[in-house]
């Protein structure tokens, strides 16, 4: 008789992890992200200084033993600020993806399942949103809502919804043709039941890939909004905001803008590499 029972999602996860561990890009991306997560979680313990504590006598110090990444114009330790910035950026990314993914998946699943005119209308709306460059649209929304981190998060999430909606809608179109959906309809299941129990769980795989790929984008957009002043407000140690403040000092105090910029770069690359590897691994495997 069949071997150990495991929820298919967990089983796929175990198999996927095993394959990923042999893929160099996946390992690299995964390691980068793991390091960032570690730094983010450990910030309260790892940061040698309070990120918002001013210390004017120590302003604009170069990187050294006392301050690994130097200090900014208010004497705050940049290393500590970068660590706390990791928390903020990763949280932003997760939150944005959760909101965009949740709403986008629901829209996509319903649109694909019902098809017909509902599908046409909804997808046209999604297309309109997608036709704007994401940063520009996010900017406009954030500006309209007012400068704050929460508003930046919602603006970014809004801009990412159509990607999830399109992807889940495509999957929903395939899943709804499956005989098991027909069997449930024959049994008397209603639309809500089918979308909730059949369509959404079966779209999970591609949603995960998309989430990983767009996490990097989300972090980048949020950082860009903060850079312009529409996102995180001072004294929040958000990476984009730090780069904005550090611009003025770029010539002589290169460390100020460079370290946060470097961290953004590495984090986004990490998510993109992992996402690409995940896409390669998950797609053909699903066929098996």
């Amino acid at each position, binding site marked *: *008789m*069949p*071997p150990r*029972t*495991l*929820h*298919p*999602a967990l*089983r796929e996860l175990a198999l996927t992890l095993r394959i990923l561990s042999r893929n160099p890009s996946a390992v690299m991306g995964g390691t980068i992200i793991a390091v960032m997560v570690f730094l983010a979680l450990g910030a309260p313990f790892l940061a040698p200084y309070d990120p918002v504590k001013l210390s004017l006598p120590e302003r604009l110090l170069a990187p050294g033993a006392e301050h690994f990444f130097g200090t900014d114009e208010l004497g705050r330790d940049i290393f500590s600020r970068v660590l706390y910035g990791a928390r903020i950026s990763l949280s932003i990314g997760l939150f944005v993806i959760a909101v965009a993914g949740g709403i986008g998946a629901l829209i996509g699943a319903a649109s694909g399942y019902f098809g017909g005119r509902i599908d046409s209308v909804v997808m046209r709306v999604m297309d309109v949103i997608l036709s704007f460059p994401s940063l520009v649209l996010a900017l406009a929304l954030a500006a309209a809502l007012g400068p704050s981190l929460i508003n930046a998060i919602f603006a970014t999430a809004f801009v990412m919804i159509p990607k999830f909606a399109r992807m889940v809608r495509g999957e929903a179109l395939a899943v709804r043709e*499956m*005989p*098991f959906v*027909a*069997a*449930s*309809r*024959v*049994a*008397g*299941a*209603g639309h809500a*039941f089918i979308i909730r*129990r*059949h369509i959404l*769980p*079966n779209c*999970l795989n591609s949603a995960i890939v998309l989430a990983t790929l767009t996490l990097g984008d989300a972090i980048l957009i949020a950082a860009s909004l903060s850079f312009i002043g529409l996102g995180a407000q001072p004294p929040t140690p958000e990476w984009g905001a730090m780069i904005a403040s550090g611009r003025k000092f770029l010539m002589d105090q290169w460390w100020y803008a460079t370290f946060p910029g470097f961290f953004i770069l590495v984090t986004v690359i990490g998510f993109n590499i992992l996402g690409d590897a995940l896409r390669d691994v998950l797609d053909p495997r699903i066929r098996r």
Partner: protein
Amino acid sequence: MSDPLLLVANLCKSFPLGGGFFSGGKRVLKAVDGVDLSVSRGETLGLVGESGSGKSTVGNCILRLLDPDSGSIAFDGVELAELSGEALTKARARMQVVFQDPQSSLDPRMTVGGIVSLPLRVQGLARGRELRERAAAALSEVGLGPECLSRYPHEFSGGQRQRIGLARALVADPAFVVMDEPTSALDVSVQAQILNLMAGLQAKRGHAYLFISHDLTVVRHVSRRIAVMYLGAIVETAPTSALFDSPAHPYTRALLASVPLPDPRIRRNLARLTGDVPSPVDLPPGCRFHPRCPEAMAVCAREAPPTVSLAPGHDVVCHLHRPG
């Protein structure tokens, strides 16, 4: 003759073929064109045909997976064709389905217990522990133990998955089950297990089956009566032995002659019909089979053939058998 459980009259279903902006008129695929059939309580009606015959569409219309264009589907006195909403949901409790593909007929993300108990849950017929108990009971009727409840479809073989599909169809104790090619994707030894199982369950519980298949040998084994479809219409209906002993319609005869018998001493010409199975898009005038019929007459190209009753229960739609 007891009053039939299912009575289908003049069922029609067409699909428009997209022509885009540049095509002239709209082309229409007449998948089902005026089908009459009946199934009595506790019996199995076999519905046989090749691709394009419309047999699966008939099944889908009866199950209301598709909405028929016209015609009547009377199930135990209730007219199904027009039902919707609550009334349709209630009617569905007594009618179930088993599909062909063991891979895709079970949701890979649900446990077997969840799958089998789904009809009960959706109809509100049971909840909580009773769901598990009834699912376990259904599984044991198909020869699977209760440990399967928490397992997932991927852990089972094709034959076992068809059993699970069967358990799902039976858990709510339906009166009627539509089987759409239930054993076509299975190996012959597994098919034998499933066919035996179905026969045993029918004998015990008295369900009626509509057994849709392209495989004549299987249909012969399970059905008491058989209806043969060609291009959207039924061309012959007969009790099984009569159909095989004295097939009346030329298509039925050609179909039977093409089936390779597993007996090397009886070798015959398998290529009785020339040409391919056409698609029901541009139906010929008159009898739809006449372009390929070895016995076509002049009238066959002009008039639609009448339904002739050759014997009680044996009807054929053909000019050849017209009385007089």
